[in-house]
């Protein structure tokens, strides 16, 4: 315990910088356009609600981070409190959130770099961003890394400049809504969509073991970070919807650049674009490294295959997990659809947040005597409210994004159960399926050749060839089935 106290070197200011550095990323630069499409001028109110909801769960994060000083964030908390399947799911949600966060950052980089260079091939820029980052992260353990205190202050200065400049420019705020505005449900859809803007504040909880006087400094750092972010984001949204017409914001993936151009001219646009590019590269690098560490953590605990733990022989970097996650995020970035990617990132984060609140409640009953340097106020109301509100937000997520998120969850559930069943049993099961399909193919080839009772037919000159083709496929499947079923157990 003395050792842990000696490790505590981070003061309140640095803790706030950690929170702001984790939260300020590409999201504010790219999510604003579709958020405005959903909420119109009420985006300011939606961001306020989003910040407050995030704050509720951040308090849960803070208690758990201070009580469980381990690397791994919510996965470690869920492992200690819930264990088994729910712990795996928490890690899986964080992985999904980071993969889609990386895709969002790659797209943010792509749309902003277009300000300087004109590329006619729309998919080329996310690909270039991804390749740069993969090379950097594979070659260096740290990569570009999370943005440091100096850059955090620079970002805050840019944002304040934009807000003050907007006010001095003369704002004409009026409540205007898009034709598709859906009232309160539109506002909550915006909250779900912009959820990822604040969630980087959890970095304070991750740094919990190193924060001096955690009982006082953690809640203060969380509160200060949340207030600063709410003021900055609401201010930026207010200025943007005031200086630009709604249709101009909705039609651009770089609305802040347009707002800066409107207020400060060309120079403002250049500065904001450079800031967005730095934020995109930083977010991309952080997301890739975080997804990599999650996959390695899940692999270490036996939920995923052990080969994910291997590192590059020369650079000592987790190249397998970096490339594994990169394949997914490049695929999604290549679609260019910011809206769906933003929603899925939010969807996974919301589910992860719900489980963190659940973990806190469970740990309070399971380990009441655990040393907690910081205890959440108004327990159990705050974690219960955090859980209920998080789950409620899922109802406002766009259907296609929800479906994509659910497919990823299904993939996770399948992976978990397959790992738990064991390799040999799965192999025998698939061998059996191959045998069954082989038998079915033999019958199908016979029926096709004789023209019995089939709702399909092939031109008569090909029927013999097709039937032979089916017989070959049938033989391959039966042989594959036999080989899989008769394989010797490795373990």
């Amino acid at each position, binding site marked *: 315990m003395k050792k842990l106290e000696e490790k505590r070197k981070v003061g309140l200011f640095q803790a706030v910088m950690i929170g702001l550095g984790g939260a300020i990323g590409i999201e504010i630069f790219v999510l604003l356009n579709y958020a405005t499409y959903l909420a119109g001028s009420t985006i300011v109110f939606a961001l306020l609600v989003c910040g407050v909801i995030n704050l509720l769960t951040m308090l849960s994060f803070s208690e758990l981070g201070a009580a469980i000083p381990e690397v791994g964030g919510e996965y470690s908390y869920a492992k200690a409190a819930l264990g088994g399947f729910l712990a795996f799911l928490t890690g899986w949600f964080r992985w999904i959130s980071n993969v889609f966060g990386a895709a969002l950052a790659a797209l943010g980089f792509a749309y902003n770099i277009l300000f300087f260079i004109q590329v006619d091939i729309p998919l080329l820029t996310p690909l270039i961003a991804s390749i740069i980052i993969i090379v950097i992260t594979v070659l260096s353990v740290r990569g570009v890394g999370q943005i440091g205190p100096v850059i955090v202050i620079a970002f805050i200065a840019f944002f304040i400049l934009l807000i003050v400049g907007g006010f001095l420019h003369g704002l004409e705020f009026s409540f205007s809504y898009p034709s598709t505005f859906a009232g309160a449900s539109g506002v909550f859809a915006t909250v779900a969509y912009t959820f990822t803007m604040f969630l980087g504040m959890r970095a304070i909880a991750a740094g919990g073991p190193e924060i001096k006087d955690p009982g006082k400094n953690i809640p203060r750092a969380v509160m200060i970070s949340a207030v600063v972010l709410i003021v900055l984001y609401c201010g930026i949204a207010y200025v943007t919807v005031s200086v630009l017409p709604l249709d101009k914001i909705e039609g651009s993936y770089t609305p802040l650049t347009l707002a800066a151009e409107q207020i400060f001219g060309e120079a403002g646009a250049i500065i904001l674009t450079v800031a967005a590019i730095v934020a995109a590269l930083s977010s991309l690098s952080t997301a890739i490294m975080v997804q990599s560490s999650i996959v390695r953590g899940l692999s270490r605990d036996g939920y995923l295959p052990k080969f994910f733990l291997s590192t590059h022989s020369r650079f000592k970097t987790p190249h397998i997990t970096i490339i594994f996650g990169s394949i997914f995020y490049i695929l999604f970035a290549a679609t260019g659809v910011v809206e769906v990617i933003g929603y899925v990132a939010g969807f996974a984060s919301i589910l992860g947040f719900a489980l963190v609140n659940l973990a806190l409640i469970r740990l309070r009953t399971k380990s009441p005597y655990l040393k907690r340097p910081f205890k959440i106020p108004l327990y159990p109301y705050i974690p219960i409210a955090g859980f209920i509100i998080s789950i409620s937000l899922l109802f406002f997520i766009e259907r296609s994004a929800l479906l994509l998120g659910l497919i990823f969850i299904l993939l996770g559930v399948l992976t978990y159960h397959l790992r738990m069943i064991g390799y040999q049993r799965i*192999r025998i099961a698939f061998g059996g*399926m*191959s045998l069954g399909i082989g038998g079915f193919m033999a019958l199908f080839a016979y029926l096709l050749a004789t023209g019995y009772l089939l709702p399909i037919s*092939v031109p008569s000159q090909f029927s013999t060839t097709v039937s032979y083709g089916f017989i070959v496929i049938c033989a391959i499947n039966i*042989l594959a089935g036999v080989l899989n079923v008769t394989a010797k157990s490795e373990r």
Partner: protein
Amino acid sequence: MKGRKLLIGFIGVTQEAIGVLTIVFCYVLYYNLFDVLNWLNIAAEHVALYVLILSVFGFVFIISGFFLIRELLE
């Protein structure tokens, strides 16, 4: 033992290829590329069923082939 390895390699790779081709055929069927529905005399309302069956078969082939290739590489 060497004979089994050879057989596993051949069957594994072939099954994997059949699996991939099955998935590609699903795509062709779903979008009726090359007028395949007419060629095979398949009613439009049955397409979803065929795509479902073929995609399940395709994935089983791919996974089963993967197990054989994995054994070969070990």
